[in-house]
């Protein structure tokens, strides 16, 4: 049996929406067929990890059992006690599979046996659940519901990352008919916007243009005194940035759309990121479910810890260190390669500089009009595109691999 990758081609959508039709009709009539929905999800997950991907399927099952055990046991424990070491042990145990998968390529040419498509996104969900159990904002864990949250089909492979309590609110209720009709309307809109983004615009940038500019840039490896910096490289930077956005935003829109059909308001992932006026604004618009997750569960926690332990008195230094840790962790999460880590450091640097600028600007009456706004957008856009050039790993190919015959 060949495996069926989520949102890969038009046929997948036809099959998926046909399978979800009973759910849609149920919701229109004010009922949520939870068991049927879970059944459909199960079939599609089996199809996703069928065929030659069966090893990933086994890894997924083991992973889910592991996370379920952790969350349920910690939930039980947390009802009566709240010891720090236990919490940190559980947290580490929850992150461990992802950490192993991400570190494996450093030591071995073979990818880790415990990895599977979507492991990152499942880890975000379970780590968040553990943290909120510690906070006491999640009081009780229903194992079956946790599974449904973790394995929610529309977002299983690449997000957006939903939150336990937000998901529970949607899932345990049923939208009113008017509300659901509005969700269907949005679902259709997102779906077609996603088609335009991923299959048309993303295709033009990624499949038609990217290989050409990549080839052109590689032909000029020796430009600018051996640095390989050429106009073709600049073109690569912009083409790659556009491809990255339209491909991923398209993908996220598919996930949103199918979520809407299931009556779930999965959080949006992109909000016109290239209109951002500064880097902070950018991270409020780009891959939002990820950046908000990092804000809430890395940045805020780190800030809180530094303040509690009184490492610094100066609040500015506190937030600078927190940014650094936040983006470094994000870099490592993307993968343990120099370019992902540099990408993280670059954004940490950019946001720290941005903070300096905002503080400097505060007391002064600098001109603020349409033109300064446009300038801000232009500068931010180019800084971001440059960071994506780092992120693309193309510099690695350009500088550290041999010319292909």
């Amino acid at each position, binding site marked *: 049996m060949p495996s069926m990758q989520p949102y890969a081609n038009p046929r997948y959508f036809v099959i998926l929406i046909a399978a979800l039709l009973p759910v849609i009709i149920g919701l*229109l009539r004010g009922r949520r067929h939870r068991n049927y929905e879970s059944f459909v999800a199960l079939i599609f997950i089996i199809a996703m990890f069928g065929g030659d991907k069966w090893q990933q399927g086994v890894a997924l099952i083991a992973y889910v059992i592991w996370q379920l055990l952790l969350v349920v046991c910690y939930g039980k424990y947390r009802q009566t006690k709240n010891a720090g070491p236990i919490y940190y042990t559980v947290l580490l145990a929850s992150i461990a599979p992802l950490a192993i998968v991400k570190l494996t390529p450093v030591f071995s040419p073979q990818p880790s046996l415990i990895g599977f498509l979507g492991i990152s996104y499942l880890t975000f969900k379970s780590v968040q659940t553990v943290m909120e159990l510690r906070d006491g904002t999640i009081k009780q864990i229903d194992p079956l519901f946790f599974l449904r949250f973790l394995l929610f089909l529309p977002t299983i492979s690449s997000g957006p990352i939903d939150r336990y309590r937000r998901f529970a609110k949607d899932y345990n209720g049923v939208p009113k008919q008017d509300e659901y*009709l509005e969700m*269907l309307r949005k679902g259709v809109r997102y779906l077609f916007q996603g088609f335009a983004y991923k299959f048309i615009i993303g295709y033009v940038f990624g499949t038609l243009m990217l290989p050409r500019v990549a080839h052109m840039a590689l032909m000029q490896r020796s430009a600018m005194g051996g640095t390989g910096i050429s106009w073709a490289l600049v073109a690569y930077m912009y083409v790659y940035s556009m491809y990255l956005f339209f491909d991923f935003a398209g993908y996220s829109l598919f996930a949103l759309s199918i979520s809407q059909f299931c009556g779930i308001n999965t959080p949006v992932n992109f909000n016109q990121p290239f209109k951002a006026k500064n880097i902070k604004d950018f991270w409020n618009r780009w891959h939002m479910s990820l950046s908000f997750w990092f804000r809430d569960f890395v940045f805020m926690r780190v800030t809180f810890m530094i303040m509690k332990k009184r490492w610094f008195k100066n609040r500015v230094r506190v937030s600078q260190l927190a940014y650094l840790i936040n983006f470094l962790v994000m870099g490592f999460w993307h993968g343990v390669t120099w370019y992902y880590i540099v990408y993280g450091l670059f954004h940490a640097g950019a946001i720290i500089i941005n903070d300096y600028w905002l503080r400097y600007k505060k007391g002064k009456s600098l001109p603020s009009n349409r033109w300064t706004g446009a300038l801000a957008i232009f500068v931010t856009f180019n800084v971001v595109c440059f960071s994506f050039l780092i992120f693309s790993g193309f510099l690695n190919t350009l500088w550290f691999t041999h010319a292909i015959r």
Partner: protein
Amino acid sequence: MKRKLWLIFGPVVCACVLVFGTLLMPLHFGKPAPKKLAAAAVSLNQDVLLGGTIKNHAVGADYVPFIDSSELSRMDPFHPSVLAAKYGGYKTLLLGGPGTQSLTQFVDNQSMFKRLRNRKIVFIISPQWFTPGGQRRDAFAYYYSPMQLTSWLLGKRGGAADRYAARRILQMGNTSGTVRQGLLSVAAGQKLPQWQRHLLKAHLQILHNEDGLFSRFASVSKNATRISKAEKKLPASATDAQLDKLAGKMGAHASRGNDFGISDKFFDSRLRGKKIVRLQGSQASFDYRRSPEYSDFQLLLRNFAQNNITVQFVIPPVNAKWAAYTGLRDDMLTQTVSKIKHQLSAQGFNHVLDMSRDGKKASYMEDTIHLGWRGWVDVDKTVRPFIKQKQATPHYHISNYYLTRSWQQHVGE
């Protein structure tokens, strides 16, 4: 609620009906403009090979198909398309690209072979195709035409050759869905179920329409301009001997920078420096005598015989200096060529131009394995009369022995 649902899904339904309705209709497209057709015929573009529209119109306009792998991309002033345009008075349809071998050409030209009944074609057969693995899978996937394969599946299938073809295509591992199901049926010697035929027919109609719609947007190549520029370098009229002399002069000039008689452009970009050092002795273990390619090639021969096509085969040489440098074995090559020739002559294919002994002639090869200058002139000496003059009706006697493993592995004395 119904009204609201219609407002949401109505446009989607209408769009789907419109798109699929249009694609499923038997649309007819006008002829491409003669100039566009001429440019597409020599473009060597992948979409021309995979499609049907351009090829079928070209055959309808009496173009002569030249089938090869990468030989025909070497466009010096003596290239068959140039000589045909300048002196021959016939037009060439070039089909091939790096990595196209028998199985690819077999699949991709299904619709064209039917239209070539009682006509002539030229086929350049490279010994380099006959590797122990045969058709490269990645290249097959790159040149795979679902449209052509679907139309093959919908034809009358049965018998050893069709079973063999289906098995080989399945081995390439890039087919899926209904096409794969169909191949499995043919490979097992079973008829396609009726519902499968309906699905395939609907799919074929969509592919036909897409081909018709999009072949007019096919990217243009520079080949047409290259050919007309090359024509200007030739005298208005010339004897073969004069052409040969001119080709020798041009070849010597273009390859003066290296010891192999290889075009300097090719040598400088692909071989000069460290690259060539690594290749010394690298081909000593190459063996073209045992290969599934012999049976894949047989599929083509069978198609030619079925449609009574007269074929001029050309077996190009290997640059002798290059062969000596890389250690390519001469006896192995000789045996390979005689095995190919045996497979041809035993079944009644009598037009074979064997150039395999000519690899040491000066200005004969443009690079390591591709003909150039004087080599092309020699090709033209055979091909032009073959096309211009009436040829005797061929009498083919096809044998399925050439589809067997024992022939694939057979090595003569």
